[in-house]
């Protein structure tokens, strides 16, 4: 696993395509970062609410990670957002 870089070790970040990044922690969806046409990175929480626009990807991922911290216990996979994923 290439869990390197600036992210807290408990947050797993994935890149779906260039500019679209999804964060999760312990299997729970935290949010995502989508690069806009102007080059800025907009961070979204687990319910797809925009929580900020940032110049750097690292700032945006940090905002998503923090949103997950503040919603701990009430966050996790939003079935309506992510679709029902059963184990």
């Amino acid at each position, binding site marked *: *696993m290439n869990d*390197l*870089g600036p992210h807290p070790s408990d947050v*797993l970040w994935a*890149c779906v395509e*260039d500019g679209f990044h999804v964060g999760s922690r312990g299997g729970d969806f935290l949010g995502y970062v989508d690069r806009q046409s102007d080059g800025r990175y907009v961070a*979204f929480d687990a319910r*797809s609410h*925009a929580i900020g626009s940032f110049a750097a990807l690292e700032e945006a991922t940090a905002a998503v990670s923090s949103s997950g911290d503040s919603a701990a216990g009430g966050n996790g996979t939003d079935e309506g957002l*992510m679709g029902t994923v059963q184990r």
Partner: protein
Amino acid sequence: MTVENDQLTSLVYTSTASAPFRETALAHLLEESRERNAAQEITGMLLYRDERFIQVLEGPAHAVRRLAETIGRDRRHHDMRILLEEPLDSRRFADWTMGYRTLQGNDAPVGFRDSFADLESGDADATTLRALRELTLWFRVRSGTLAPSSHG
């Protein structure tokens, strides 16, 4: 996982194109599959990247399995491998008889997983499920069915 015959089911597979697909060939493939899927209550998503396919089929279990068998015999691809089959409470792709998106090659930044590669690898259930969720989210955002909202 075994599911009942009429249970709403999702099946995910990966395969390799037998030859590079031009846009016209993909359009023809999608036209075929959408007509067939509509008749069989099948919905889903097809992703294509670097001559690799990932497809999600969802519908009644018997219809999904029959379609997967048919797809497996299609000479336009090979090395078909089923990554996941699971029961669903509701469809993830109810709006698409076969949604389609091409992904460009992905040079994931250092520290980031590559969702397409993770799903395709199918190494572990947890990895497969996570990668599927990521690709589903991306598909929905890019297709405009998951409209981001402003904060507050």
